[in-house]
């Protein structure tokens, strides 16, 4: 494999057609509207955003669970937009997904050993007997011990955290190079979240896994991410190294988002940015900068002209006409 990024996404768009009021004109929700980023080998890249930001749609486009309207997705040197089904099927063993809800993503009548073995059999990587053996090893590996015994259980006999471990085992059994974790720990109890994140982290360390980590929870993202992109109404508004974004957010939206995160350490909340109103209807985003109607600093230019995503310091990009001044390193 080359030294380049494992994933390169260019100008990705997904417009969903919606029925308009009278059913005459065509209307679109621009769920993802020109998103570009790269994920390096062994890198964890987080997409953070509120509901309606397009972060989940982006993850599904990359796995081609849905088809993009336009744009390019290059995975391990190959363009996968428009790739034929047969080739895509082979590609899938290298790209897996972990969903938010382990209750919904596991077949309730399938023993977990079989659920974990299934992807190996489906992708023709092992016969049934080998697959079952490897599933047991994988259950041990993800902390469902003893794997041999756990393999016999049904999903409803497991706790939420255990089910999410099954989902991870199922994703990792084909030894993928890359996974998309879509709100993978959001529904878990707080004492469990960190252990699931450290399990994912251990796969990165040991087998060089790259990851797209999609979440609305910035504190969790911070635990595992090298870099992060903040999305708002279908666009990336800021992108850069995780630590730098936390210490020196350049986009007013990023700063407001960070200040709203509850924290045991900062109990006296410092609020420097007061947002106006609510997230606009995605069918009807404001003209110019999409954040302009909520931004306390917006002026006439912001309402008129859409800002480009530009690099303001090494590796730190922001889409704002008036970015906040950088904090010192």
């Amino acid at each position, binding site marked *: 494999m080359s030294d380049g990024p494992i994933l390169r996404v260019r100008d990705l768009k997904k417009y969903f057609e919606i029925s308009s009021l009278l059913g005459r004109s065509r209307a679109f929700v621009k769920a993802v509207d020109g998103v570009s980023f790269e994920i390096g080998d062994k890198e964890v890249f987080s997409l953070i955003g*509120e*509901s309606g930001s397009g972060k989940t749609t982006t993850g599904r486009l990359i796995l081609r669970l849905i088809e993009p309207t336009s744009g390019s997705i290059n995975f391990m040197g190959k363009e996968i937009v428009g790739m034929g089904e047969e080739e895509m099927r082979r590609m899938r063993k290298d790209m897996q997904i972990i969903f938010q809800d382990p209750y919904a993503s596991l077949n309730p009548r399938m023993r977990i050993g079989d659920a974990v073995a299934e992807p190996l059999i489906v992708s023709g990587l092992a016969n049934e007997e080998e697959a079952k053996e490897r599933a047991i090893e994988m259950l041990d590996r993800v902390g469902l011990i003893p794997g041999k015994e756990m393999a016999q259980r049904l999903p409803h006999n497991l*706790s*939420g*955290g*255990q089910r999410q471990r099954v989902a991870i085992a199922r994703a990792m059994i084909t030894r993928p190079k890359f996974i998309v974790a879509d709100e993978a720990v959001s529904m878990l*109890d*707080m*004492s*469990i*979240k*960190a*252990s699931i*994140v*450290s399990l994912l982290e251990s796969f990165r360390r040991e087998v060089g896994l790259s990851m797209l980590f999609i979440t*609305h929870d*910035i*504190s*969790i993202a*911070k*635990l595992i991410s090298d870099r992060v992109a903040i999305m708002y109404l279908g666009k990336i508004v800021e992108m850069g190294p995780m630590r730098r974004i*936390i210490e020196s957010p350049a986009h007013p939206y990023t700063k*407001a*988002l*960070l200040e*709203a*995160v*509850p*924290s*045991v*350490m*900062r*109990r006296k*909340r410092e609020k420097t940015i007061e*947002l106006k109103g*609510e*997230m606009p209807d995605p069918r009807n985003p404001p003209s110019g900068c999409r954040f302009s109607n909520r931004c306390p600093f917006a002026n006439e230019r912001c309402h008129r002209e859409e800002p480009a995503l530009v690099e303001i310091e090494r590796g730190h990009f922001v889409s704002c006409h008036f970015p906040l001044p950088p904090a010192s390193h």
Partner: protein
Amino acid sequence: MPLMSVESLEITYMALGGRIKAVDGISFSLEQGEWMTVVGESGSGKSTLAYAIMRLVPPPGKITGGKIVFDGMNLLELDKEKLRKIRGKEIAMVFQDPMTSLDPLRRVGDQAAELFVEHEGLDMEEAKKRAEEAMKSVRLPQHVLNSYPHQLSGGQRQRVMIAMAMSLRPKLLIADEPTTALDVLVQEGIMELLNSMKEEGTSILLITHDLSLAANWSDRIMVMYAGRLAELGNTEDLVERPLHPYTKGLLDSVPDLWSDKEVKPIEGNPPDMRYPPPGCRFHPRCPMAMEICSKKEPPILSIDKRVVSCWLMAKEGGKA
């Protein structure tokens, strides 16, 4: 005198193959104008406790012991008629999913107005005016009144519920995971609304699994584990000097944006409440567990302004 005191409350679910004590001997009091947050994981009994105060424990659950004294009355002894008057007017509750408490087929404004007809005996016209004011007070646009619940965002629906709860000026507001499904900016707006109610004298009982949220907004925090009280204290004392190993474990397991401390998960899982462990229910996960912890339930100790249930503290001279 506190606004409410809960004494040795016990709630039991009669399940196939046995009884589950979802809430087991919980006592605390709440002052007028105080914000207390109950923190716990799934199965801790925190929501069951909230429902019990409203006398809304869903069957097969039953309040099997204890007292809830609110404003001088034991809520557990009130008849249906008196309860109906207290609910909404004296004690209001908002839930995690506001869709469960809004009628999907009726406009929001009509539902809000009905509240004032019912509780304040207003005629429909006056009631509609009050509903308008209520939506304004939570900064919701007027068109919300003419909308059906499904036409609103999750955050807007929750603000509608809070507007309705606020407008009757209850003495106590119980909020059960009101922001769990919402984004952080929306969550912050909701917390600010609860705080403004508190400033006007309403007591707040927030139920959440999020210790950070509790730390940011409450005067006191009660930590529950497997149906029992683990620790209760002033927010600052509890987060800065936790006494119970479970509280400490939670604090260590919560990632924090503004700290580089190492995050350490609590090993193991909360118990299956059908088969709770003997002794202290936390002992199988407790790094400090001693022999006695697996044999005998720890006493509930008062140490200064703190309440803690742990054998480690019993040894260090707390009073039972």
